């Protein structure tokens, strides 16, 4: 089987973005996932976020590991470079790519198996380094591509399709991210585009490592009764707590505008992320509060979603490495070559 290309159909009066592109310009190859797979909905939300942000497709880079979720980088942004790496190792490839050129917009797509088992180390270290990327963890509680084994994200007591009960405690990527220093930490649900698209936009515009843990049900292996990652279970316990949106520099909100509910967070590009608290007394700039909130919601089985934590001031990898603004891959060799005379001089110390 070879890959399908989606036909480019352009309707009349189709909305365009600032670049004059339509939403379909942000599509990729035809998905080969199961009908109803949560991942396809996430793909659509990612494409929409890029469209709405008017990012030139060729200035975006998609990176992924291995899994059904990781395959999806082929299914959007056909005019972007994409790289499907090896299982669990996308963060390192992303880190190297970003070191070489920090000016592009990087989106990583991974699964709960890819990130929390084989790739746990790389996932954590990319967060520690505050690599400037948005990391989409499409979480279905199982290994979809290898047919339904429990992943490390499976909740205790959740059952597999054939009845086995998971007895191991889950690794919660959101708590983990808070512990190791990620600077944009969110949870979302593939079934709630209203929340997800703005969140992706905010995450793409955030400078530093952004994680969105998206519950994204696997209809083939983990959507049955007894699974805590099914559509039904997620809808039942779903609690959108903080709504985040991105506001470009040109459309800044005025201070007077519903100041009590809306919290603007200034971004490096001059834009803002606006946070609308759907619950009182929650400050997403407070890491400890975020940890507490997660713990409490976990106790009541509630799935708290939205932008749970943000720190816009922390240095990202580029800044910590004191690299100059110009991407490494654009520095001409003439500036890198110390020259023959210098080599002679250097060797005086070796006599």
């Amino acid at each position: 089987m070879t890959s399908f290309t989606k036909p480019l159909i352009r309707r009349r009066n189709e909305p365009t973005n600032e670049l004059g592109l339509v939403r379909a310009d942000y599509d990729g190859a035809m998905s080969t996932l199961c009908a109803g797979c949560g991942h396809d909905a996430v793909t659509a939300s990612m494409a929409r976020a890029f469209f709405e942000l008017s990012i030139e497709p060729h200035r975006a880079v998609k990176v992924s590991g291995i899994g059904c979720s990781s395959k999806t980088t082929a299914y959007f942004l056909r005019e972007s470079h994409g790289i499907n790496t090896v299982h669990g190792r996308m963060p390192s490839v992303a880190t190297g790519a970003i070191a070489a050129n920090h000016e592009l917009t990087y989106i990583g797509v991974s699964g709960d198996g890819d990130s929390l088992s084989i790739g746990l180390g790389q996932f954590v270290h990319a967060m520690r380094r505050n690599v400037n990327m948005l990391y989409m963890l499409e979480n279905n509680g199982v290994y979809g591509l290898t047919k339904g084994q429990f992943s490390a994200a499976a909740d205790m007591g959740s059952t597999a399709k054939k009845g086995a009960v998971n007895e191991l405690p889950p690794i919660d990527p959101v708590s983990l991210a808070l512990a190791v220093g990620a600077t944009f930490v969110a949870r979302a649900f593939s079934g709630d585009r209203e929340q997800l698209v703005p969140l992706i936009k905010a995450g793409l515009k955030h400078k530093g490592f952004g994680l969105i843990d998206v519950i994204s049900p696997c209809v083939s292996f983990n959507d049955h009764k007894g699974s805590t990652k099914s559509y039904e279970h997620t809808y039942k316990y779903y609690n959108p707590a903080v709504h985040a949106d991105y506001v470009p520099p040109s459309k800044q909100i005025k201070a007077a505008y519903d100041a009590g509910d809306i919290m603007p967070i200034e971004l490096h590009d001059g834009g803002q992320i606006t946070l609308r608290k759907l619950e009182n007394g929650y400050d997403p700039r407070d890491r400890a509060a975020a940890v507490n909130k997660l713990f409490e919601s976990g106790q009541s089985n509630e799935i708290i979603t939205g932008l749970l934590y943000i720190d816009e001031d922390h240095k990202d990898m580029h800044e910590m490495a004191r690299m100059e603004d110009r991407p490494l891959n654009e520095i001409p060799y003439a500036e890198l070559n110390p020259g023959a005379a210098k080599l002679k001089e250097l060797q005086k110390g070796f006599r």
Partner: protein
Amino acid sequence: MSDLLVNNFTIKVGNVNGTGSASANALLMKIIFRMGVPVVGKNIFPSNIQGLPTWYEIRVTEKGYRGRSGDIDLMVAMNPESYKRDLAELSPGGILLYDDTWPRPHFLTRTDITVIGVPLARMCNAAFKVARSRILMKNVAYVGAVAALLDLDLDIIHTLLREMFASKPKLIDLNLQAIALGYDYAKENFGDVSKFKVKARDLTKGKVMMDGNTTAGLGCVYGGATFGAWYPITPSTSLMDAFVKYCKQLRINPDTGKHKYCIIQAEDELAAAGMIIGAAWNGARCFTPTSGPGISLMSEFIGFAYYTEIPMVLFDIQRTGPSTGMPTRTQQCDIQLCAYASHGDTAHILLFPADPSECFDMAVNALDLAERFQTPVFVLSDIDIGMNDWMIDELSWDDNYVPDRGKILLPEDLEGMEKFHRYLDTDGDHIPYRTLPGTDPKGAYFTRGSGHNKFGGYTEDGAEYKEVVDRLVMKWASAADKLPAPVVRKAKKPTKNAIISIGSCDGAVIEARDKLGADGVYLNYMRVRGFPFSSEVEAFIAEHDQVFVIEQNRDAQLRGLLLEHTNTPREKLVPLLHYSGEPLDYKFVRGALSEALKIRKSA
């Protein structure tokens, strides 16, 4: 023992790790080098930070040989733990110098050597107050004693100490004092005991003493690498240390403090490999230094880079395996590992430097080749080359050098094209064009380690799959003539016997061959410097009746590659293997060759 005792002998110092012996040994070697006499230094050290035995060999060789001699003529036995072994190792007629603050009568069991006792500890305890300096100065004092025995030039010693401690002037006097303690005592008591002497010559002009990790790191700077990722592992760490050092000196904008490079200490070797793949894919020149265990971990990524055609430069500073092995002992044991690293059908480009000079050149070559062929390239150095100071010709640089960035399409190239396909062999040279992210919408493509066709699309079609992997093997084979050519040394007289060897074996092989030649035994010699092998290699084997393949591993790995990749009957390639972990010496090679030739003749 040789009759030629001037500028032709070997000193070995046995010491305890962590007592400052390294700088004393370096000083001793430099004094001789500065006197214009060629030296060879070999550090034989334990995998430990403090307390275990460590040795340093300094060969003084007017003829400029580069391997070990296999003899020890002057043993400085500073470590009671290894006295017995050190005593046994000394060649007949040799001198043993030890610290007789605590007399050791059992040294007198050997009548074929001379024992010299110098009360180093006693003298230093009397002269220095601080406990740590007493230990450190004991080592400097033996340098003084050895200097007296060998007639080393005191002026040079003084100059060197002043240079070494230019930033810490207090230490100059301390060291000068320690030198004098040893020197005066030895002159007074053993003034004319030693027949081994160093006489000043003019043979080290234009030479430097450098280790291969330093030169390789410097090569990466000169080759234009801007990114490096690594995970610490002996013996490759000092390569990255060198890169860091020279980047700090040469690549920081003095006005802004901003860096024109990025170095990441990764969480493990898998991540280091992933990082350089990401950076290379995105158009930065980059590399990772590691050793065997790191290559094992990187294997999956190496196959990924091979199949997706991403440039990747790896330095493998080989150490003994398997597993952790003897991490501070040298071997050439990763040849086959690197040649075929990763699962599935893979074959890689390997470069084999023989000394620090070639490490510098081959670092630059590797950066060029990886981008030209869009594939992993390995530089296989080892502990002997990487961590020992070698006397080499001063490194030079051609200011006209232009990096070969390979086949990269720029927006202006893409403009005229109907459509870009990542894996199309448009030029018929088996190398496709690539594009860099962010440069042009037309250049976008999807990189995948899963089955892909020549257009870059996903495939599970057998014929489409084969088309790509068949091109890959042709691409690999076509690199053979672009690698550094083998070095051939012809014997003085025509012969049907030959040697093929590799890397750090070179010095010992050359010397053994000289000695055999003097006895009328002639051998042609080829040192291979790259894999895939050029056609010259097969032709060379074909010209001879028997070829001895000398290498430093148990399983004859180079021979295995030669059998696999040339049309040669097995019996023709005779393995001569050294794998104790110590650098090769010519006596071993001469012995093994003589033995093999005798057996062959009588068979």
